């Protein structure tokens, strides 16, 4: 295991190959590596295979841009700011992407097994759901469970009558994505990673993946981050590339750093219900800006300041969120 390299976002993303299997940090519209999503779209990635505990604004965008061939997860939407993943739904309905549904626990357990280096996890969760309907094994239907892709298990799951108490459990195969792209609050100068607040399934995602790109709000002296090793998430040797990029999770939220930009997400949702709408939106916000700095300037400093989290609360009190 080597030491992580500090690189630019463009360099990090250029290492991802068409067809690679990816997973991400965060939860729905929280702490998603959005700057990396934008850059993957700019670089025109194709045929990506997403395997994630849940989706959100980030994968709906990647799907809208035509970067994704296979989606394995349990949910896409924008929470309060968009009731479905409009791009995901459109491409799912037209058959432009292959979607393989698991439940939250099942997806989590795929990454837990990948992180623990075991071939599967057993679970009682979601027995009786059509998720387990053999007719809905999308990768199987597409002929992709033939062993030619080592990242795709030969079976979606297996029912098993276990020998200890005689119950039936579902065995859910491990996932070890090629890459985890994670947005985090803080990285030490040698690569120790810390997130603030809820950890979602970040630890499992980073440990399951073969390679990890960490995008961080800030790099701090390693000595500082090691004063409280109880608070850290993964050590340097599990990180391959580090990119320092404040606001890199915008428009999703980042506990302790900034609020989710609901207005931005809602506008994305509203404007990208059609492919034409997506293309126009992407022209403005992705292709129309050269890099993350231009993106931030286009958003404007005052918008960002309103989103900045209160030091006491971990979220912003300056954003209008509801109807009153």
């Amino acid at each position: 295991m080597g030491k992580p390299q500090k690189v630019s976002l463009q360099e990090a993303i250029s290492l991802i190959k068409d067809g690679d299997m990816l997973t991400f940090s965060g939860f729905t519209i929280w702490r998603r590596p959005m700057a990396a999503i934008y850059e993957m779209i700019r670089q025109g990635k194709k045929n990506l295979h997403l395997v994630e505990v849940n989706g959100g604004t980030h994968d709906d965008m990647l799907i809208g841009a035509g970067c994704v061939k296979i989606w394995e997860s349990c949910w896409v939407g924008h929470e309060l700011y968009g009731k479905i993943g409009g791009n995901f739904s459109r491409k799912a309905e037209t058959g432009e992407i292959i979607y393989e549904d698991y439940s939250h626990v099942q997806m989590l357990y795929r990454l837990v097994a990948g992180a623990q280096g075991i071939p599967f996890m057993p679970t009682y969760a979601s027995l009786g759901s059509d998720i387990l309907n053999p007719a809905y094994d999308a990768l199987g239907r597409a002929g992709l469970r033939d062993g030619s892709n080592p990242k795709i298990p030969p079976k979606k799951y297996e029912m098993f009558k276990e020998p200890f108490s005689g119950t039936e459990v579902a065995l859910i195969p491990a996932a070890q994505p090629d890459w985890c792209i994670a947005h985090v609050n803080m990285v030490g100068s040698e690569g120790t990673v810390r997130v603030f607040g809820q950890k979602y399934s970040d630890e499992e995602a980073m440990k399951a993946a073969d390679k990890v790109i960490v995008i961080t709000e800030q790099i701090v002296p390693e000595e500082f981050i090691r004063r409280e090793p109880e608070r850290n998430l993964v050590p340097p040797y599990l990180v391959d590339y580090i990119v320092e990029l404040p606001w890199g999770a915008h428009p999703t939220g980042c506990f302790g750093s900034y609020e989710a930009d609901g207005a931005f997400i809602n506008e994305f949702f509203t404007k990208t219900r059609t492919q034409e709408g997506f293309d126009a939106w992407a022209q403005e916000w992705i292709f129309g800006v050269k890099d993350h700095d231009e993106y931030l300037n286009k958003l404007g400093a005052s918008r960002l300041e309103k989103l900045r989290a209160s030091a006491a609360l971990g979220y912003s009190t300056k954003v209008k969120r509801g109807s009153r």
Partner: protein
Amino acid sequence: MAGNEYAKPGEFKPIDLLAVAAAREVNDGEVVFAGTGLPMLAIMLAQLTTSPNAVCIYEAGSVDGRPISLPTSVGDARCIYQASIASGLYDVFGQLQRGVVDLAFLGGAEIDQYGNVNTTAMGGYFGGKRLTGSGGNPDINALAKRTVFIFVQEKRRWVERCSYITSPGWRIPHWPSGEFVHKKEVYGKAFRGGPSAVISNMGVFRFDDDGVIYLDTVHPGFTPEQVKENCMFDLNISRVSGETKPPTYRDLELLYNVVDPEGIFLP
């Protein structure tokens, strides 16, 4: 108007009654798993009224948060203000599977007479209208001791059998064969319970021993027959026990001034 008096028709909205009726399903001291939206209003109202010792878990990884500002989703930074634990999915779903969760609040897009719920696709898994997908709905519904669904009652979404069963109710397919059986048969020793109530904008529903839904109370302003007409299946209205109690003035004040003063879920 004393706080504990019931509000009169016209003084509350249908969504208020949904939240209040759901809150009444919580027993004090219970561990409650709640999703985004109305479930948040329900558990927070319950904690402010009848169930001060109820504990709320959000699936993104917060346990017993005491937010002073309403979260917009379960991953929201607000969820962990004065929380006991801020962790992640592995912690809270593990607790769920361990049997810690007494009650879950969930929603959906389509529901059937067995309490099966669809949040995945309407009109066919391949080629139908694609929705968000399962999230943790089927996991939570599978493993909590009781589940309460909060559900807008649109006739075409209250069906005899869900076109896609995302979340397993009382009668479910036993995979891989697909034989349709009682939940107890599928879960065996791991069986813990299932949907205990559905709360719609028209009434409160419960399930009989065979796992079939029936109307328990009807909301003010509706008749049982009207509720039945809003179902695609032959709803059992023979067990109606009366009218759903409306919100109290105190409930409404708490909902609008304490729980959701910003108007996030309450318009």
